[in-house]
Structure formats: C-alpha cells, structure tokens
C-alpha cells in the first residue's frame, strides 16, 4: 500500500539532542542543508535512515530525528548496505569522513560504489583527523604539518573523486562547505539518483586545519577560482563568467572569452551523464579552477534491483514454497 507522503519542515528532522560540534564548523552547514533538503525529497520521515562511522561528522545521526545508527570506524557503507538490502524502500544515508572512508574504511568505500546500492554518502573531507585531535589523513597534502607529521606530511593524498570514479561511482558531486544552497540542491539530486551517490563536502576544520580550502572557497575569490558545473551548461566561471574550459589534446585548458577569437561555443558543455569517465576524472583532478557541482551522474541498475529481480525469478520457478518442501525433498528414507 502506498501511503501519502507527509508534509514536513526542517524542524521535523531535528532531534532533541544538543549539537556538539565546534562553533564555526562546516558540519553545521551540512546538517542544516540536510534538514532543509529532506522535506523537498518526498520521503516519509520513518523511511529515512542515517548510518555513520566514527569521527566528528559521524555524530550526525544523533542530531537527525530519523532512524539512525552511529556505527564503528569505517564500516558505515557496509552497515548501510545491509539496511538497504533488507528494505530497499528506505532512504539510506551514509555519513563519513576522509579518515573514516578513505583510510580505515577504504575497502567498504570502493566496494559499495562498485556494487551501486542506492545509498547516499556524504563524505566530510577536512583533510585531517579531527576527533583524534589533529593527525594527517589520506587527503592531507604533502608537506602539511600536523600532530603526526610535525616536519610535514610525506604521504601523497587521495583525491576522493578520482578514487570514487575509479571504483565505478555513478554519481559524484563536490560541494564547498560554505555553500548551503548548492549543498541543499545537491542533496536533493543525490536522493533522486537511483544508485550510490557520493557527495564530497570540502569542509573546513576550524580547530585543526583552519583555512584548508580558503584559497578557493573564500567568498571574495570563489567565483574566480571555482567552476560550478551543471549538466548541459557550458563550463564557464569567473565573476564575469568570461572564463571557460576547453579540451586541448588530452588536457583541459582555461580560456577567456573574447581572447584569441574564443566564444562561448568553443567552451566545453558539461555532460554528467557520459558513461566514459575520462572527462569527469579530468574535472576532478583539475587544480584551477576547482570544479564543484555534480560532476558525474550516470544511470545504472542497482544491486538491490538485480537482487529483487533474481529473487522473483527464482521464486517463480521454485518447487519449494515452505521449508518442509525442501527438507523432505530428494533422497529421504523412512524408518518404521
């Protein structure tokens, strides 16, 4: 029986628990964006589940008045996979961080993407271990000084998007932590997408890694330093929207409209639905401008759809309706 979707406001999704992140943390922005996005998603509150791992962001489920589980370090995608396979009707969200999903939980992270279970994963990437008080993470930059790298980090970082697309992510979006409206929109799109959606939030850590993204997220410069892609739209950026991306050989290049005869027609148009991940990977890797928005969104069959279909097929042709049919089948014998 289909029940009508109830009407909600963001307050309906706030739990009675006091939020305990550091003042000024971008996690608040995501929490609020989530609470605002949920009423727009057309899901009932009782069907929403948040599963988290360990880390600052993983407290998130406690602050949502929905079903939730604060799991163990790195395992949220695996727990969430069980939830979704158990009940494909649920809207299941994974809350994770750069340490949680790219270090200790790296294995689950890649395999959930490969399987394409319809989960939404928010990766809070602050390039640092916050909850354990400031060690470098798998996304920390080489040379970054942290408590566990006082002379500078020597380990090259992962690019979350590159790893994800390499692991066959069908939906990948990148959002700056200080853009609540964009974030709300991306969250709604992620829920709408049928398959695993990964949203990487470039999140500032005010205590241990303050300003880690300021170079391109600061309000004064972000329009010049970020390219916000939208499917079907030309890849233009800059305060005056006069900069754009073109493909030159196997490289992306920034051009200025009006210079050297370049017009808007020469600029690449974003195709998030393209199966071939080559251009998406180039956008992910680009250092200038930093690309945000939904970089990749490619429809595909989900694992649970395959499973449900297979189960129906097996059920239809099986001679076993109850366990008795199985237990007494085949080679049995009677003792009198």
């Amino acid at each position: 029986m289909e029940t009508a979707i109830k009407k909600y406001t963001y307050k309906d999704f706030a739990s009675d628990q006091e939020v305990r992140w550091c003042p000024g943390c971008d996690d608040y922005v995501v929490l609020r964006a989530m609470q605002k996005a949920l009423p727009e998603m057309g899901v009932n509150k009782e069907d929403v589940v948040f599963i988290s791992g360990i880390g600052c962001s993983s407290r998130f489920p406690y602050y949502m008045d929905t079903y939730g589980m604060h799991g163990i370090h790195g395992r949220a995608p695996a727990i969430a996979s069980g939830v979704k396979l158990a009940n494909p009707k649920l809207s299941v969200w994974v809350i994770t961080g750069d340490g949680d999903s790219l270090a200790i939980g790296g294995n689950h992270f890649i395999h959930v993407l490969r399987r394409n279970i319809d989960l939404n994963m928010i990766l809070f990437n602050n390039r640092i271990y916050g909850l354990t008080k400031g060690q470098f993470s798998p996304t920390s930059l080489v040379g970054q000084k942290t408590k566990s790298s006082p002379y500078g980090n020597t380990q090259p970082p992962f690019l979350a998007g590159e790893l994800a697309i390499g692991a066959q992510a069908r939906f990948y979006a990148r959002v700056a932590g200080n853009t609540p409206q964009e974030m709300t929109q991306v969250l709604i799109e992620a829920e709408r997408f049928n398959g695993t959606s990964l949203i990487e939030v470039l999140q500032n850590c005010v205590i241990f890694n303050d300003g880690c993204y300021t170079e391109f997220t600061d309000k004064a410069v972000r329009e010049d330093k970020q390219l916000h892609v939208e499917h079907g739209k030309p890849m233009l950026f800059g305060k005056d929207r006069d900069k754009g991306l073109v493909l030159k050989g196997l490289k992306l290049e920034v051009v200025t409209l009006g210079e050297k005869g370049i017009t808007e027609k020469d600029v690449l148009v974003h195709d998030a639905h393209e199966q071939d991940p080559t251009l998406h990977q180039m956008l992910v890797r680009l250092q200038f401008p930093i690309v945000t928005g939904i970089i990749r969104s490619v429809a595909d069959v989900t694992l649970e759809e395959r499973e449900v279909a297979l189960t129906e097929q097996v059920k239809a042709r099986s001679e076993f309706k109850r366990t008795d049919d199985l237990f007494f089948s085949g080679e049995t014998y009677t003792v009198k």
Partner: protein
Amino acid sequence: MIQAKIEGPDIRSLEAVVVRFVGDSGDGMQLTGTQFTDTSAMFGNDVATFPNYPSEIRAPQGSLYGVSGYQVHIGSIEVSTPGDNVDLLVAMNPAGLKTNLYAVKPGHTLIVDTDSFTQKNLDKAEYKSNPLHDGSLENYRVIEVAMTSLTREALKDVEGLDNKTITRSKNMFALGMVYWMYHRSPEHSIDFFRKKFKKKPELIEANTKVLQAGYYYSETLELIPNSFTIAPAKMASGTYRVIMGNTATAWGFLAAAEKSGMDLFLGSYPITPASDILHELVKHKHFGVSTLQAEDEIAGIASAIGASFAGKLAITTTSGPGLALKGEALGLAMMVELPLVIVDVQRGGPSTGLPTKTEQSDLLQAMYGRNGESPVIVIAASTPSNCFAYAYEAARLTLEHMTPVILLTDGYIANGSAPWKIQSVSEMKPIKNRLVKEASESWHPYDRDEKTLARSWAVPGTPGLEHRVGGLEKDANSGNVSYVPENHEAMTEVRAEKIRRVQDNIPEIVPEFAQEGELLVVGWGGTYGSLHTAVKQLSQEGYSKVGYAHFNYINPLPKNTGELLKKFRKVIVCELNSGQFAKILKINFTGLAPLQYNKIQGLPFGNEELIEAFKKHLA
C-alpha cells in the same frame, strides 16, 4: 537391475564397518564416499562420516600431501563417530596407501589399484620398494586390482569420452567393488548419475558401466574371499535423510526464519570450512533469503548488523580468523542490542593454522574476544545433524533476548554427515520476536522486558518510533548518549545480567549413563560422538559410576551445572584444545579442579585414547 544378494556360504553378518577411500585430491574420493554413505543410509544403516582432504585444491598428482580421504562408519547399531580403525581401506595410489595404512589393523582388508603403483608414483610416495611386492603388507588381506585398465576396458565402446574422463571414472570401479562386498545395490548411485549428468548422457553411461564393471568383477573373480552384511540399525521411526553439518546449520536458520515469520539475511565472506553454509543459503532465495558476499569479514558482519537494524533475521558465518576480524562489529551489535547470529565453524588455529582440520580452540575467543566488557550468548552444536537444532536455537535466543549469539561448530561436524530425522517447522519450538509495530508516547529504544531485560525492536519504516542507536554508551532510560559514570556501570551490569537470565530459557543439563558417582566425563561441541561412544563402552564394560555431560550451552551455562559437577568425585574435561572449557568451568565454580584430556592435532578424539585416559582415573 542388479539385486544385492542376501544369503550365501561366504557371507558374514557384521554390526558395523569402517571404510576409508583414499586417493589423489582429483580422484573423486569425496564423491565415492558420499555415494557409499547415502546408499547405506537409505538401506537403513546408521552412518557417520569424516572427509579429510588437503587445503590444496589439486596438489601435485601422487604426492603424499595431496591425498584426499573419506571415511564412513556404517552400522546396524548406533554409530556416533566415523570410527578409529579402518576395516577396509580403498587406496587408489601409493601415496594414499602410505598415509593411511596406520589406520588399518593387521588382518583387515586393503583394495589397491595396482595400475597406479608405478615407479614414478612409488617415488612420489617415498616408497623405497613396492609394498605390494616387498612383503610389508603380508599381515593384511590385500586385494590387488588393475582398476585403471579395467576401467578403460569397460569404457572402450563408449563414445565421446576423452582419456582424462575415462581415467577419472575409476573411482566408480572401486565403489562398485565395495557395493558388492557389503551387499549394497548400485541402483541408488545409478539414479544419482542420471540426475547429476542430465545433460551429459555419455557420463551417465560411463559412470554406470564402470560401477557395474567393479560390481561384477568382485562377484565373478574369486579375489574377494567373502562379503558382509550389515543389517539396518534400530532407529527412531520417522523420515530421514543424510545431512552434512554445514547444510544442517543453513537449514536450521531457514526453519527459524519461517517459524518467526521473518526473512533471513546472510552477510558473509568465504572462508574454509564455513563457506558451504553460504553456498547452501544462497540457493534459497525462494524462501526470502537474501545474501551478500561481502568484500571482507568485517563487511560480512556489518551488513548483517544493518539488516538486523532494518528488521531481518540476520546472520554471518565464518571461521576462527574471521571471528577475530568481526570482533569489533560484534561488540557494536552487543552494544546496540540487536539480534544477530555469528556462526564460527572452528578450524585448527592459531593464525591460518590448519584450515581444513578440526579444533575447538575458538571458545575463549567467542567468550571474550572483544574490547570492553561485552558478553554474548555462546552455544555449540555437537553432531552434524544437530547443527540444525542449534542453528534454530541460536536464532530463537537472539530474537527473544536481543543480543548476539555465537554458534560454534567445527570442521569435523560441519563436513561430516549423519542421518537426520527430518523435523518439520510445525514441530519446532515457537519463536517470539521483540518487534514493536506501533508507536506509544513513552516508547524508547531501551525499554526492556522485565523478565529477560531484552529491549524492544523498532525498525525503520515504523512511523513514530524514529530513534538512534550506536556504539557510544547510552543512558539507561532515554537511550541518548551518556558519559555519566554510574550509568555506564549500570548499563554494563544490565548487559551482563541479560545474558545470565538466558538460563531461564534454556534446558538444564542431563548427564548420560551414571547420574552420580566416580567420574564425570565433560565435553562440549563437536566431540559428542567420540565421547559418547567411549563412555558407552565403559558402561557396557561394567563401569557403572561413569557419567557423561555434554554441553551445548556455554554462555550462560545451564542452571544446574554446579550441582551436577558436585555429584561426581572426579570431573574430566575433554577438549580439542589445551583446556579452554575447563578454564570457563573453573572461573564459574570456585574450588573446582577438573582433570583434563586434551588433543591438539587437528583430528577428532580416537576411541582407544579416551578409554585409556578414563580408565586411568577409575579404580
């Protein structure tokens, strides 16, 4: 159709017989053994089997470490173990003979494929001279048969067979001979070929021809001095089938799911010797079973925790090393108080240990292998067929008590098979789950049943019962995160008390044989067959003061355990480890100083060693 002959001058009737088939790991010994087992069981014999194979899939041909064996004990009397002493050894090559001759007592019979006793194979088996010619087997009755050539001969007119297929059919020649010797009709196996090779008629023909060739060969040539009958055993009336332990475990969960009206979810990662449970359950999607072959052991249990949170009867299956990996997640399941069964099919440890051999050395890991104080229910199956009952019981306890249950089996009972009196779900104990379907104003996730302390279970999709659980300590009342010192202590105590109260929901332990007296033999888990047989023998020999207590419930122990232990002057705890259950008993019962009999060889107990060990302590 071949009719097994029933009477004749050279026919002797036996109570029980032990047959072992040995050959290369590619020789089809497991199939040969299971065919002989099934045929005997259907004839009405009691049966117990013990497959013994190398961990290499196809070890180099003819090598000593590549020998695969299958032992079966059939009887007209109760048979509880695969038997210690082999009455008939069928050796398909020198390596098989070399590694298995120790189990055959002088005077007993060997059937060997002489074609395989080439210089090359003798060298590989490290024989300095051919044992068939050097007199070293003179104390045995050796039946020499050129099985490979005879198989070729039998198949010379069958078309569409390659050389390899022809050679590989020789196991059926051996089976045919053994069928003749024990008056078993080959019809059951011929039926089996018809079903198994439905799409390959040439293989039905080949296997049938070779089987019959072996049968008639024994009958015609007077190489075999006499044959034997083993009458049907006296068994409780009912419908039976021969079942392997791992299959029984899988079926127990199917039964529990049907009885509780829930769907089963299995999250698992392949590991020897537990993978067969996954293989079995994945077949049964028609019963609403969903399975996830996960990326690792941790994801296996984590996905099961997720499925449990969403309202499934969730299980995960593994063996020792996998249980170690699952430890942290198991602690989470205990902390969030969700139902979950973890099956540990124990194997030889530590580390990778002896993956294809049996051991009972994960007991302390099951009891204590987690951070913090994290008690769970621990139970153990004790025979291949009662894996069914204990898998069902594990599901019942986890659903009724809302706490994880570890079910211990082991490689010996998991791969062994025995007759199982089929149980219909309608005859099984009812299972009450703790699901809450409707919201009440005052509901919170840690509302507990007064009697059992089990919390109630609200699953996503239920309006009004939205709540959060997690690994952080929770306030005893609201279920919110709490760092209050007294609350943590109280919650720790609740979790422990919850397990203690399971005692009210499990049966008391009833000893076999003497109910009080001189010596109480204590065992747990998969050693039931060996220990029961040994104490039974003592009892038949007139030792009337020896009792036997076998534990299937380990945490908590049955209520009357302490009382029972006091009824005997001595207690001897027998385990395939260096004394883990003995430790648990000592922790629970101050002053108890049990004797121990331990074996850590990757093998089950033998009967004679047990009798000897027990007699030492009997006046």
